């Protein structure tokens, strides 16, 4: 087991270094000189000295290999350089926006599982019935509905309902207040984006729960439990669901990808100043240092999540061989 853990953790290193190399390469693929592109995009004039200063600031006057080493080393130290747009440290900009995104992400995961696991189980128990069909359509619709459109629909509904109820339209607040300061204000801001992202994420989990449950329900020990005359809800909850939820754990990795993708667009819809919005802005503003840092952070988070999921799964399911 320990050998497996160490082996799996060591595998993270080449992936991360590879990803860093890819991000580093991508940002150097930008046609032309990024300093010229960046300085010229405002429409103003600039002289050679400004370009040289920009090169020096980004370390572009150094050999490529050293630049890469700097990039990786900076990443490990948490030093991502200076934002080309705001002039402030990248880490500072990210830290300011992190809490909103994190809160939405956590809430979305909770919402997704609260919707998905019961519905997936019911769907499997009532296989091929109209309820099963309805739940399957609901989950496929979750995958098909773009999160930004769902968000817009939420806004439409909020506006209409508040107009009807209070006589004047109400919109969720857009400036972030920590939950311990003003829980109501915080929740009214975060709940709709979390629902938007959560519904889409739940679709994946729902389908997995259903198919895993169907598989487990055909196992011999379920038949044995039935033959013993166990009450149905104990068979379902203790014997079937417990085993069926095991593969659902592996989905956390996929969910993470959905969450990140969902956050990028949903924050835009609800005008929230989170990581996703920062990402889109940095791409729009050609803030290459920021884009590079954010891509790298997301990838690192994603790789680490997947590693933890692998380890968790091996720990939960003793049948997995530690190869």
């Amino acid at each position, binding site marked *: 087991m320990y050998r497996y853990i160490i082996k799996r953790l060591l595998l993270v290193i*080449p*992936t991360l270094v*590879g*990803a860093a*190399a*890819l*991000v580093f390469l*991508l*940002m150097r*693929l*930008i*046609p032309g000189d990024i300093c010229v592109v960046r300085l010229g995009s405002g429409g103003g004039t600039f002289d050679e000295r400004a370009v040289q200063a920009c090169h020096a600031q980004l370390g572009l006057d150094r050999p490529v290999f050293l630049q890469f080493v700097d990039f990786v080393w900076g990443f490990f130290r948490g030093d991502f350089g200076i934002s080309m747009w705001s002039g402030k440290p990248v880490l500072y900009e990210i830290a300011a926006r992190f809490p909103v995104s994190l809160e939405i992400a956590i809430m979305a995961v909770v919402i997704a599982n609260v919707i998905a696991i019961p519905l997936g189980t019911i769907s499997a128990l009532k*296989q091929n019935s109209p309820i099963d*069909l309805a739940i*399957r*359509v609901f989950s*496929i*619709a979750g*995958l*098909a*509905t*773009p*999160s*930004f*459109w769902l968000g*817009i*629909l939420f*806004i*439409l509904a909020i*506006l*209409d309902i508040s*107009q009807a109820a209070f006589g004047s*339209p109400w919109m969720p607040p857009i400036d972030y207040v920590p939950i311990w300061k003003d829980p109501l204000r915080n929740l009214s801001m975060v709940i709709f984006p979390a629902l938007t992202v959560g519904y889409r994420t739940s679709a994946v989990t729902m389908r997995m729960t259903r*198919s895993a449950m*169907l598989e487990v329900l055909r196992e011999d020990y379920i038949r044995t439990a039935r033959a013993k005359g166990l009450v149905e809800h104990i068979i379902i909850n203790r014997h079937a669901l417990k085993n069926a939820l095991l593969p659902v754990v592996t989905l956390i990795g996929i969910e*993470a*990808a959905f969450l*990140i*993708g969902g956050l*990028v*667009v949903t924050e*835009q*819809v609800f005008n929230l100043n989170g990581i996703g919005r920062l*990402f*889109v802005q*940095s*791409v*729009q503003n*050609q803030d*290459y240092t920021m*884009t590079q840092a954010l*891509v790298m952070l*997301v*990838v690192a988070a*994603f*790789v680490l999540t997947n590693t933890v999921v692998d380890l968790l799964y091996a720990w939960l399911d003793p049948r997995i061989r530690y190869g």
Partner: protein
Amino acid sequence: MTIAAPTTARNLSPFADDLSEIRRSRLRAAWIFCRRQPLGTFGMVIVLIMAIAGLCADWIAPYSPTANDFAAMTEAPSWAHWLGTDQFGRDLLSRIIFGARTALIVGFSCAIVASVAGLVLGVGSAYFGGRLDLYLQGVLDVVMAFPLIIMALAVVAIFGTGIHNVIVAITIPLIPRCARVLRSSALSIREVPYIDAARACGFGHSRIILRHMVPNVMAPYLILLTAFVGQAILAEASLSYLGLGVQEPVPAWGLMLQGGAEEYASTAPWIAIFPGLAIALTVFGFSLFGDSLRDALDPKLRDR
């Protein structure tokens, strides 16, 4: 198979009968699919409607998708404008019909290029194995570490916006996803005796790969292809919505939701509702069709 027809002067090829037989059995398979998979058929119908809308947009659309009519801005759905007009007085129905063309062009080009590249990499990697396989998997693992939309945004950050760059941006992250699935299918086929037999016959690598391995991974390939079209359409819509995809005045569904949709949310909700419905319906159609295709092609899932 029926008994082979006797070879006569008129019917020299013994294969002629087989061909018509194959054609008939394909039609029959399609018919069985429609009967057994009502949801899948429903999805197929949606996809067909969108395809017809995209192909024949010039003849179907009542107005030009880019013509402004300042006398009819943010007009509610009416007989003149079935789905209403946007803030520039452009007919929403016409823009949605032309948007189907953009969506399908992006969807199919991304899916086809990505799945063909994935097929070559996946099957090639499985067939040759060894070092090549090891290194290739390493590279693909790295690319897989980028969530789709993040990779797409990074590519757009480099090459800029516009329909061609969007296609590149969405295709790149799809390739390793396809290669990985097809590699694992191909790996199990490599061990099957008929591959050894083909090798023993002295056939070349390309012949073994193309004639013996590729046809056997067609089932997962087709399933992936349909799934990719839906994913690509969704990704394009997201990018366009963020202002980083297809640019005005090209009619694209995501783009239609970008400008006025939220601003006019309370006064002209149709601007926000219909383009999103078009995206959701199309992707829904592809997902239903893909799911049923999987059920029909994968014998393990057949009775589920």
